[in-house]
């Protein structure tokens, strides 16, 4: 192994005998551009809704559920596609998410959720993944479109005004704490607390699923 590495190292270190410096630099540049362009194109191709619903797991479950919601059909026709909410927009975070998504390729190959029954059994775990992510990044994917600074409370209903001007404004709560199940059906919440323990405690749960402040206080005693 070491010998093999040494041999390659020697080849790489040796100056080129046949190719000119110009060819190598310009060729390297063009090759780099082609590689980067191709990489990014492929990355963007996997970041479309058409790609997501290419699998029947996504098309028959979550995509169906999205359709009657406000994020799919509404008066102004602006809509959110799968990656708008499920893939970070910033490049580094996006790459990190894409690497995580290799597990979803595994799931596809081995049919982890390939029937409605299997999907229903996994629903809580899957929902929990998304809740944890959004809790941890302060609902970044919501805020990519819904900017708190641009919210006009006077145009909101009394209920929305109260919630947004107190808990949300103070940072005590984040979007997902209350707006769970906004785009997909909610899972059976009976096991939520047990699953949350695996992920480090009830604080990973959205407020509407987790315990009330009083219950939390009793739990800690």
């Amino acid at each position, binding site marked *: 192994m070491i010998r093999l590495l040494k041999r390659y190292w020697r080849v790489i270190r040796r100056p080129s005998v046949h190719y000119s410096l110009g060819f190598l630099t310009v060729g390297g540049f063009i090759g780099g551009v082609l590689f980067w362009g191709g990489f990014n194109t492929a990355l963007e191709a996997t970041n479309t809704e058409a790609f997501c619903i290419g699998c029947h797991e996504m098309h028959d479950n979550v995509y169906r559920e999205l359709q009657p919601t406000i994020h799919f059909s509404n008066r102004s026709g602006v809509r959110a596609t799968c990656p708008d909410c499920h893939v970070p927009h910033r490049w580094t975070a996006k790459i990190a998410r894409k690497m995580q998504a290799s597990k979803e390729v595994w799931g596809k190959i081995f049919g982890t959720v390939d029937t409605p029954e299997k999907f229903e059994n996994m629903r809580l775990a899957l929902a929990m993944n998304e809740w944890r992510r959004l809790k941890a990044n302060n609902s970044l994917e919501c805020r990519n479109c819904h900017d708190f600074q641009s919210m006009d409370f006077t145009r909101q*209903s009394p209920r929305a005004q109260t919630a947004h001007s107190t808990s949300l404004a103070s940072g005590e709560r984040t979007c997902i704490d209350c707006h769970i*199940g906004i785009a997909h*059906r*909610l*899972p*059976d919440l009976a096991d939520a607390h047990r699953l949350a323990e695996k992920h480090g405690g009830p604080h990973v749960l959205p407020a*509407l699923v987790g315990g*009330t402040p*009083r219950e939390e206080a009793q739990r800690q005693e």
Partner: protein
Amino acid sequence: MRILISVGLAALCATAALAQHIDNARGPVPVMEEHAPPPLQNPDNSDVRRQRAYAMQPPIIPHKIEGYQTDRNANRCMMCHARTRTEQSQAPMISVSHFTDRDGNFLAELSPRRYFCLQCHVPQVPVKPLVENRYIDVETMLRRGGSASTLPGRE
């Protein structure tokens, strides 16, 4: 033969009557024609409690409930109106009557027979009623000292 003719005649009369019949709730469209539904309205979202028409009336929902999930997995209403949630949400708690089962046993939480909130509680839409409402509040009735026969229009 005679029976056949009479049955046929009866059917004809019935069809004619149906075609002429105009239902108040449908508007001026004959029953046999398809009616274009009126546009959907936004429900009342004022979050202001309304007076109940009678003491046992299930209170109406003074806010939007579009997309609220109520099935075997989750009950969106209870995420604010459950006993343990009201401190945070400041929503009215479900009535104590909702904790008893049909045998009168007092349960720890919402009785399964009360699970589907929309069976009794409904949101309100500001539309003109299709038929005139002649309901009289019991207090009005008592003050008037009248009987059920003293309805408006019959006085």
